[in-house]
């Protein structure tokens, strides 16, 4: 009798333990934990893709949560970005009086300042932004995010297309002149656009990386993220240009030219990747391939429109006969329905969702580096 009681008691006790465990196991999911790497500041350099509001707006849809990719990455570390510079004109800038702003990127940012006004001082030159940032050394707890080259590539493509659309001494001089600002070898090969463009973009990457080395890596930075150039031939603006060429000269020429331009972009991206490959402090994120995949495979990214600009076009066309856009007018109400899941805001820049997708790719790279 005594034994049975003991047995029953023991069983009951264990069952209770089991039940307690069950209830301890209950409950739903909870939120995220802090990153394991402490990043206490994020400094950003580059062009419109990374600009937090130098001109008073961001180069995307003007929604309340229109975080650009760099802002999303910074928020992951609890950091809020704001524009370091404030524009006083199209090409003139003063430091933002608001303290603590660390995003130096400016819309229209270029590596080769020969394509902008006041080439020796214009802060659209990313090297000038980087030099300003280098005035304060980087700490081991800082992250640096850099993008650039997209506007340079667009300028190169533009100069080349002029030689095709308006052949003559003037457009040719422009083309050869631009090539020569970066590489004498590129200028010498000007008659061979495939090769000269590759030489130009490779030299551009070399110059960019040596600037980054001098102003970032040699100033103590240990978490450096470089976003490569997206395939800008897939933007609505370039698609319109290419379609125009296709209409005038045939689909074969259109495809051939697109491949040439992609070769130029890839030359830059390959050179940056090669330069950075041996340096564990640098992460180069392949935005180029990811952006192509988004356009070719939109459902995978829940994108519903990868062709059309979401922002309303201005009433009149630009000097190049292409539509222009005014970002401050591109409010959620004015944007095309479905802009939330479209890729493009105007004809050249991503929507906030496009930025989110880019930020996800960058976050993956950062996590794989062990920086998250």
């Amino acid at each position, binding site marked *: 009798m005594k034994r049975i009681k003991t047995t029953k008691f023991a069983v009951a006790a264990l069952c209770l333990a089991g039940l307690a465990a069950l209830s301890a*196991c*209950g409950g739903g999911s909870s939120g*995220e934990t802090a990153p394991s790497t402490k990043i206490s500041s994020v400094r950003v350099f580059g062009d419109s893709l990374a600009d937090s509001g130098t001109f008073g707006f961001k180069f995307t849809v003007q929604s309340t949560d229109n975080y650009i990719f760099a802002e999303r990455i910074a928020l992951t570390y609890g950091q809020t970005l704001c524009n370091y510079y404030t524009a006083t004109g199209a090409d003139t800038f003063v430091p933002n009086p608001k303290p603590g702003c660390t995003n130096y990127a400016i819309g229209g940012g270029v590596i080769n300042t020969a394509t902008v006004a006041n080439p020796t001082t214009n802060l659209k030159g990313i090297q000038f932004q980087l030099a300003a940032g280098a005035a304060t050394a980087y700490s081991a707890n800082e992250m640096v995010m850099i993008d650039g080259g997209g506007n340079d590539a667009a300028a190169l493509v533009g100069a080349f297309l002029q030689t095709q659309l308006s052949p003559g001494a003037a457009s040719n001089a422009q083309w050869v002149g631009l090539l020569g600002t970066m590489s004498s070898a590129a200028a010498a090969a000007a008659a061979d656009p495939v090769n000269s463009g590759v030489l130009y973009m490779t030299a551009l990457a070399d110059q960019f990386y040596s600037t980054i080395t001098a102003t970032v890596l040699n100033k103590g930075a240990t978490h450096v993220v470089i976003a490569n150039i997206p395939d800008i031939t897939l933007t609505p603006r370039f698609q319109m240009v290419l379609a125009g060429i296709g209409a005038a000269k045939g689909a074969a020429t259109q495809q051939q030219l697109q491949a040439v331009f992609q070769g130029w972009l890839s030359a830059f991206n390959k050179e940056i990747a090669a330069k950075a490959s041996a340096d564990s402090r640098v992460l180069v994120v392949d935005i180029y391939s990811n952006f192509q995949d988004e356009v070719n495979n939109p459902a995978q990214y829940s994108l519903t429109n990868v062709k059309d600009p979401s922002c309303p076009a201005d009433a009149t066309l630009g000097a190049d006969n292409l539509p222009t856009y005014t970002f401050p007018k591109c409010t959620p109400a004015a944007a095309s329905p479905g802009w939330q899941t479209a890729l493009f805001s105007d004809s050249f820049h991503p929507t906030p969702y496009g930025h989110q997708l880019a930020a996800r790719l960058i*976050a993956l790279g950062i*996590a794989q580096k062990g920086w998250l």
Partner: protein
Amino acid sequence: MKTKHLNLAVVASAALLAATFAGQAQAQAAGTFTVRLGATTVMPDVTSGDLSAPTLPHTRIDVDKASQVSGGITYMWTDNIAVDLPLGIPFKHKIVGAGAAEGAGELGTVKSLPITLALQYRLGEASAKVRPYVGLGGVYAHFGDSKGTATLNALAGGLPSNPVSMKMDNKAGALVQLGVFAQVWGKWSVDFSVNKIFLKTTGHLSTGQTIDTKLDPTAVQVGVGYTF
């Protein structure tokens, strides 16, 4: 993790050895209960599906192994047929990136409690000192207390102000086991078993994304028992 695993094996072998030299003792006969306390390691053998859109193609997960204190009750229905109810506290598993997310590290943790009931056939006489057994059972895996990391949040497009959370569906599965029960001293015994669990579940993110995952864990348990 590895050390713990090794320790279990050492304990098991020592117990088996001891059993060989133990004297005649209380049998595990029909109507008896054996309660045990020990430890279990659950090693998932994950076959992950792809996380649904929006994400990079072939974003997958892996689930790390976990160990925990465990116990159980064995009731001898006949001299050879036993009903076994393992008892324990939840296992905390790390979920890590795989496929396109390979190398991304820890995406979160989830606690699992595999509620199991097994029917066993124990070889040998009721009085035998060493009794190997085979078992067949059902498992209801209860998943809870999931926690996503900052990495999951950033990869899934969340923001710290609006983080992405995750959960896993509770699912039923099947279990097969091979084990050995050994009397060590008097009413004291050691029980060692290797269990294969066939279990599929679906993970959900608060973004609405899902991932089908075959977990199929192998669970190795060892316990010191007392027969009433």
